């Protein structure tokens, strides 16, 4: 019950932040756009039309696609990255806000362990972002269902995976927020790690060539596995919708793990270690 109080308070605080209100407005505009732009072709009664143009079922060179799945897939991929990117912006300041002088004393003087306090705060911040994302995704899902007659459950399910990805990545935001006690630093370092993680994803085909040295290669590997693998997890969450023909091009550049679940496993371990470090730091610190 005590942790729930902190959790609900954090969601409210996250939602009331200007960035998430802006995100809500943007999401509403996009939903409204889809509501007007999407329809089924009146000629054949089944082709998908966007702004009056039919989405073809082939992309040339003999590549066939399912138009609805293709649109949902592209939408999910771009919106998932947007959610993580924007979510960091929106809620990275929540941990430092809890640690502000005059506020932290109030929270720490309540009968709630520091572990519960930090985890309920992190979960609340993540949920605040996810609620906004759910609004966005469910809105699009309803439009496709009502106007095109396709109720794509995989599309909805992939949202839950994105939620998990955001919670795992938030471990870094939480740790940096605790150490620096600054929303600005927290955002900046989180983005650096986000970019670094994306860069290291292509290490075997690019960074390894910079220096043909085993120690250098293993160091890059260690850094890569030390942080949640956001890019891989987001890509794999899209598998719940379908396979994009563009993925074949990308697979030539990156190492493909033997199982799509492996990035989740590695990231889960990495996030657990980072959360544990954050809890330990928070539990030992004077305020």
């Amino acid at each position: 019950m005590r942790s729930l109080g902190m959790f609900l308070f954090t969601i409210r605080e996250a939602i009331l932040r200007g960035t998430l209100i802006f995100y809500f407005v943007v999401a509403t505009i996009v939903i409204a756009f889809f509501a007007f732009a999407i329809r089924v072709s009146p000629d054949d009664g089944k082709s998908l039309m966007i702004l009056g143009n039919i989405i073809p079922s082939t992309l040339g060179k003999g590549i066939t696609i399912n138009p609805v799945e293709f649109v949902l897939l592209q939408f999910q991929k771009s919106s998932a990255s947007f959610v993580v990117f924007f979510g960091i912006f929106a809620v990275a300041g929540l941990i430092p806000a809890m640690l502000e002088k005059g506020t932290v004393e109030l929270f720490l003087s309540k009968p709630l362990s520091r572990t519960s306090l930090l985890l309920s705060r992190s979960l609340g911040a993540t949920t605040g972002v996810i609620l906004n994302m759910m609004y966005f995704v469910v809105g699009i899902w309803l439009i496709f269902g009502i106007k095109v007659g396709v109720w794509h459950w995989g599309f909805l399910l992939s949202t839950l995976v994105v939620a998990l990805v955001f919670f795992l990545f938030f471990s870094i935001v939480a740790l940096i927020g605790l150490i620096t006690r600054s929303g600005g630093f927290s955002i900046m370092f989180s983005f650096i790690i986000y970019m670094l993680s994306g860069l290291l994803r292509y290490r075997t085909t690019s960074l390894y060539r910079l220096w043909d040295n085993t120690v250098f290669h293993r160091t890059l590997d260690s850094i890569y596995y030390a942080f949640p693998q956001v890019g891989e997890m987001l890509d794999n969450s899209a598998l719940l919708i379908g396979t994009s023909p563009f993925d074949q091009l990308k697979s030539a550049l990156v190492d493909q793990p033997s199982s799509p679940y492996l990035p989740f496993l590695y990231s889960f371990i990495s996030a657990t270690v980072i959360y544990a470090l954050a809890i330990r730091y928070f539990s030992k610190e004077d305020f």
Partner: protein
Amino acid sequence: MPIVHTQQLTKIYRSGFVKRKEVAALKDVSISVERGEIFGLLGPNGAGKTTFVKILLSIVFPTKGQAEIFGQKLGALEIREKSGYLPENHRYPSFLTGLQTLQLFGQLHGLNGSVLNDKAKSLLELVGLKDWGKVKIKRYSKGMLQRLGLAQALMNDPEILFLDEPTDGVDPVGRKEIRDLLKDLRAKGTTIFLNSHMLSEVEAISDRVAILNKGEVLKIGTVADITSTKLEYEIQLDQIASGQLCEKIRPLVRELKGNEKTLIVAVHDKNDIHTVQDLIRQEGIFVESMSPRKSSLEDYFIQLIQSGEGK
């Protein structure tokens, strides 16, 4: 059995990576607070008062020493379940209303449903914010925020209430209301630990006080003990005391001060004051009045701190 008991509590703050700098905020502080009393912790800014309270509530960890509250070692959740705390310079989320703020802190104490709502509303009324419950706290004045802070500290009906500068920014009428509220709480059995540099206020309501300076306890005792000046009397005469009279009195007393018709004498023994009176009468001077001297807590505090500075 004391409700709060500390033994040689020490806190050293360390800073700097290359050149380690150490600041002792508390040095071997041993204090006991009895159940149901108002205990005032006095000291100038930076004396270590806030650090002491923060250690008791596990917001800051001690470097050395031990402490128990309700017989529990520091860090036990039970301590915070039974405690209320009003920090100095507290900040509440400005997007909440007064009522929502109390509901939030009530939830963190495990309250919910109608119990939570009723408690929050009754406390708003108690601190005089009944009509402000639905107003966002960013519109509150400093004094109103202080009252709200007091209400949040009372959400769990604490057995001990830690207040750090509770009347800071509150107008004189509000200060009196807070003092009366604290007296009511004491009457109901709540122990109150009051951190303040508003000496007159502490003097008005505290049963016992401790004076802290540079992290060290300089004095602990009841307000009456501290403010009474031992065997010191002020004697009003009907005429100016002669030098000859003063010379006769001086060997009998520890200290003799005065001007014109007023003599201030500090005697070794209570009976010596009769001898002094006899000597005055022998000189044909009439004693108009004689009263034991009492200094204010402020006088004592300043004297003690200044003597400490000179060490």
